[in-house]
């Protein structure tokens, strides 16, 4: 098994899917010659040419809308939103169109588009290059939202997203791009969309989270293990629709649940997780559900000390687990 970075997993998945299926193509701002502002599409333009790696005009609604049209024609568009913060001009195409194409046509048409978008903070991006945007879309039936944490999950889930016959929003944590490395099999594989994954087995406290915070939880769990606190970690991987069974099982496992998101708290994806637990696990809980999230302010500032104040960190996760364990 090779060790690759999170962003390399993105690039490999794209490249392999484009090699496998000539209907797969990439479109977005600067995805061509430049290989993407993060270099996620690096090398694709050279390998597949400008017909399948398309630099679009600066217009997100068109990128998604044109992608939907191409998907209706039978192709497999992978649209890049340069930053998740900039996908809002395409909100109408995503929510009114992509998500509802199958339903409104009574299964006659479908819109199998994959929308990739780097999200998340901690990169000196300020208010508009740091946001977690999933909650805006995580209430729209017809959409699936994938947010992987490891190179292995990235590669397997991005392939499944591209092959999915329904639209998928695929959020990539931009700070994880080069920070997170991990093993991926040499042979071809895919992973199921909609399935959460236990990233660590434990008995005292359950942490349910996704994206980069999975690594914060893993780091905290290591430390806490030394103090005899055993942490169970569930990685949601798909944040909409939720893997309810996995959530319920994980909550029951320890009876103490910490939910972590880097998004602002109120109305976030972990609110739904909390609701699912509240509906299903009342008599299994030994402590109230706890949520750890960014403050309810628009987004993290650019100035370094302010950004730091805003961010979820391994230390904050560790403290929260400790508090729960001692409850």
């Amino acid at each position, binding site marked *: 098994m090779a060790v690759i970075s999170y962003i390399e997993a993105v690039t490999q998945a794209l490249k392999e899917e484009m090699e496998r299926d000539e209907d797969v193509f990439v479109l977005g701002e600067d995805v061509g010659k430049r290989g993407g502002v993060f270099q996620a599409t690096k090398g694709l333009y050279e390998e597949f040419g400008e017909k399948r790696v398309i630099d679009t005009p600066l217009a997100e609604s*068109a990128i998604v809308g044109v992608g939907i*049209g191409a998907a209706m*024609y039978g192709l497999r568009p992978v649209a890049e939103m340069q930053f998740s913060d900039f996908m809002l001009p395409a909100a109408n195409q995503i929510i009114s169109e992509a998500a509802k194409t199958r339903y409104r*046509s009574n*299964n006659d048409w479908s819109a199998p588009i994959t929308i990739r978008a780097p999200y998340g903070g901690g990169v000196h991006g300020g208010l508009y290059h740091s946001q977690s945007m999933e909650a805006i879309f995580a209430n729209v039936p017809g959409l699936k939202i994938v947010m992987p944490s490891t190179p292995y999950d990235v590669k397997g889930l991005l392939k499944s997203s591209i092959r999915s*016959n329904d639209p998928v929003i695929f959020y990539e944590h931009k700070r994880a791009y080069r920070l997170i490395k991990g093993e991926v099999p040499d042979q071809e594989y895919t992973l199921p969309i909609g399935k959460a994954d236990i990233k660590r087995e434990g008995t005292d406290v359950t942490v349910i989270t996704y994206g980069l915070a999975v690594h914060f939880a893993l780091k905290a769990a290591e430390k806490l293990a030394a103090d005899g606190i055993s942490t169970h970690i569930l990685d949601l991987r798909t944040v909409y629709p939720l893997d309810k069974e996995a959530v319920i099982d994980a909550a029951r496992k320890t009876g103490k649940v910490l939910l972590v998101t880097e998004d602002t708290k109120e109305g976030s994806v972990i609110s739904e997780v909390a609701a699912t637990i509240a509906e299903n696990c009342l008599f299994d809980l030994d402590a109230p559900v706890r949520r750890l999230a960014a403050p309810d302010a628009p987004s993290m500032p650019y100035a370094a000390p302010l950004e730091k104040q805003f961010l979820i960190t391994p230390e904050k996760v560790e403290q929260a687990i400790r508090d729960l364990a001692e409850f």
Partner: protein
Amino acid sequence: MMKTGEEENKVENRHHALGFSDQDVLNMYRIMLTARRIDERLWLLNRAGKIPFVVSCQGQEAAQVGAAFALNREKDYVAPYYRDYGFVLAWGMTVREMMLNNFAKAEDPNSAGRQMPGHFGDRKLRMLTHSSPVTTQNPHAVGIALAAKIKGDDIVSFVTFGEGSSNQGDFHEACNFAGVHKLPVIFMCENNHYAISVGLKHQLACAHVSDRAAGYGMFGRTFDGNDPLAAYAAVKEAADRAHRGEGPSLLEANCYRLQPHTSDDNDMTYRTKEEVDAHKKYDGVLTFAQYLRDLEILTPDVEQQLEEQIRSEIDEATDYAEQAPFADPDSVLRYVYEEKD
């Protein structure tokens, strides 16, 4: 156009030059008239409480049918908007299907009653599924053309929308994308002079929607939307350009909406009966009929036969649709995502 010696009528035959036989233009008229008669029936059904909602095509049939005739009805992809009764009929939707659509019954091929009437879409006809937020179909049509270009398929992608809708961001983004990539798309604006209550001069500050073509480096033309032959000629030119790799076109059909916006609207709150009546004399269904009469293609006999055929077709379709079952209420849970088996 020069008159030849053999033209004796006061009215010039304009359709032969376009390659149409007399039977062709009669077919054209038949479809226009069918659209009109369906529309009239729908208002009656609405007023009778049998269907909750009507959106009307009246005043736009000529442009719609003429356009459809200029496209390849075996190959091209189309994204018609909610008023395009004439277009979809010309494209292969049946009268019965139109009535199933308006009664929102399970057999409606457009959405099985899920969507409001006029939200067309049928995959077997290469007709994209239409939604309510205006102008979202424009980028879809561009995507069709892009995909065809990638695959090397020689088709045209055709999309319609209203003049009010041409002020949406999606109009701009779609046109620009098509222009930059020189895609075979025909954008046809059906300018009926109103967006619900808001008249043209409160919607646009340019004289013609087609004036916007230049900003996308594309071909632009405004034509008489009451004349199916003018529509045909304009769309044909745009289609020829598209096939020759000359990129997209922005066409504008100059029409007038003869009915209220929908059955929920009272147009007398924002325009006068006099204004509407004044426009009735340009009504394409009437003027094209007159053209065919003048050329003795639409003889009294033919006309009566046509009307009778259409009426009985609509009668049958209405009965059928009225009696057809609704979709199973439990079906509301279906097709949110792909169902694997």
